[in-house]
């Protein structure tokens, strides 16, 4: 009896296991192998010669373009992610309770989800459609830029937010939904109890709401890193087009992709360390 259950269990997941082996695991391994080879294309087959980490070294030492494309992307990942998490949390708080027009606002905030992932965003960026504020026209901007250098550091984050606000919001769609779902999972009896005990809204927010959102914040951050990294970008286009480069066909592109992946994993690991639930602290629920 039990055996039959086990067998049926495997039956349901077998399709994934096969798929994983063929379309994910093997390509992963082979890609790693290719990245450490030099490849020549013959007729109908390819010839590989194991080379060790030469491609990886080349990516940093000899390839000017790789670093040029990688650094801005890295900066984008590091700076955008926390902002996306913060903004989507704010939006989720705004959109959580019932109020007139909530459906309309939710529809607007979530709409970019159907537009990202393709060339639409890069075309809009290329045509400067996301520069909401022509900064030079505004006093605040000029105020910040006119500050002496030592103080203007303070203004940098604000300027950055203005310049990139549209994009940050556009990338926040799914994350907002995740936070809304999380907010609705908070046990209302705890909130009731706190209110009865006389806690102010502010206290409730910091001591109850925020801690219970911690794990979703981690998920949101990781999701943001992964999706941002896969967007249309110079780096990604470079990796794709280099695939068929005649000198280093397949292999160098694979190496670059692996480097990129390792960087993403590093960032994700960082996020995990910062945002994971600590076992020793008592949970709010």
């Amino acid at each position, binding site marked *: 009896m039990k055996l039959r*259950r086990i067998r049926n*269990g495997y039956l349901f997941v077998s399709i994934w296991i096969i798929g994983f082996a063929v379309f994910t695991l093997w390509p992963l391994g082979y890609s790693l192998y290719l990245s450490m080879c030099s490849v020549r294309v013959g007729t109908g087959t390819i010839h590989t010669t194991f080379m060790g980490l030469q491609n990886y070294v080349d990516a940093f030492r000899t390839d000017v373009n790789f670093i040029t494309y990688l650094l801005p992307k890295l900066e984008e990942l590091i700076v955008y992610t926390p902002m996306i998490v913060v903004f989507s949390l704010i939006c989720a708080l705004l959109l959580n309770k019932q109020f007139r027009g909530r459906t309309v606002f939710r529809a607007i905030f979530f709409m970019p989800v159907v537009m990202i992932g393709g060339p*639409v965003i890069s075309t809009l960026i290329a045509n400067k459609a996301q520069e909401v504020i022509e900064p030079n026209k505004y006093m605040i901007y000029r105020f910040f830029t006119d500050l002496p250098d030592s103080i203007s550091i303070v203004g940098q984050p604000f300027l950055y937010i203005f310049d990139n606000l549209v994009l940050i919001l556009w990338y926040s769609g799914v994350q907002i939904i995740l936070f809304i779902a999380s907010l609705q999972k908070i046990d209302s009896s705890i909130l009731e109890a706190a209110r009865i005990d006389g806690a102010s809204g502010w206290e409730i927010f910091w001591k109850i709401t925020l801690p219970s959102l911690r794990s979703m914040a981690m998920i949101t951050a990781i999701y943001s890193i992964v999706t941002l990294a896969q967007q249309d970008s110079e780096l990604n286009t470079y990796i794709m087009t280099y695939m068929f480069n005649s000198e280093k066909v397949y292999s160098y592109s694979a190496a670059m992709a692996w480097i990129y992946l390792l960087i993403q994993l590093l960032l994700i690991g960082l996020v995990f360390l910062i945002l994971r639930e600590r076992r020793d602290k008592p949970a709010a629920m």
Partner: protein
Amino acid sequence: MTVTGQKRIRRRTSLDRQHVRTKGMMIGRYVLLLAFSFAYLYPLIYMNIVSLMDVKDLVNPSVTWIPSAIYWGNYTQAVDVLQLEQTVPTTIMIAVVSAILQTVSTGLVGYGLARYEFPGRKLLIVLMVLTFFIPAQITMIPKYLLFSRIGILNSPLCLFLPALFGQGNNSAIFVLIFYQFFDSYPPSLDEAARLDGASDGQIFVKIALPVSVPAVIISVLFSFVWYWNETYITALFCGSEYTTLPMALENFSFTFSKMFPTTPGSLSGQLSEGITMAATNITVLPLVIFYLLLQKQFVESVDKSGIAGT
């Protein structure tokens, strides 16, 4: 009125404070929402306005937000270059089939993980989560070689096969959604059915499937949208034979220059921002309409799926 007959000013109680604070919060909320909404819609507004401007307006520095006349020429040109009669059906076909295949396979897998105990189950779940981190660029080369070897390169099968086997676009997310979903109703229903003599297959079809409708909806909707927008890998695997609408946008300037070779020195006939914006608008339009019709499903169904219950 008090005993002394003087007018008494009522002390402000904490209830009043709360009332004012709540009113203030409401206004604050609307202000923030409106400000953010403006930021959200700005690119779309910009796109729509610029797409209606002809070249004279575009180069005219005094024309910023209101075109001197509504010019539809950008759209007619964009429609030609985008080759809508081919690209739209192709895109729909690829997106729909992939979405269905992916939903089916991830649903099966999610059910198996949720409702059955078997050795290696935990490991599978961990693997599942890990696959989410794998960017498409890493596996694309070996997949390209594999597909080439089995001869399906340049056909949408390159997308359909992985989707069918649970390795599609972001499949891990959907497996986890289905897993959460099937985990959320009591197994006693299954047990009761089993006592009545139902087979596992019948339990799946008669009990699990009807309950899973919200999760199926999310899976189909999101898969559809993500497959529609997926340009890189689609271009790589079937690009030479099949062109999707986003791919047409990606190659727009190239195709444009082939279809409308320009004479140097003349302003007319060149690829202007207006035409690009018109093309982008057209590309985005099907999905926006799709979204607006179904937006309730998109937004509300995530709540219902219970994926936030960690």
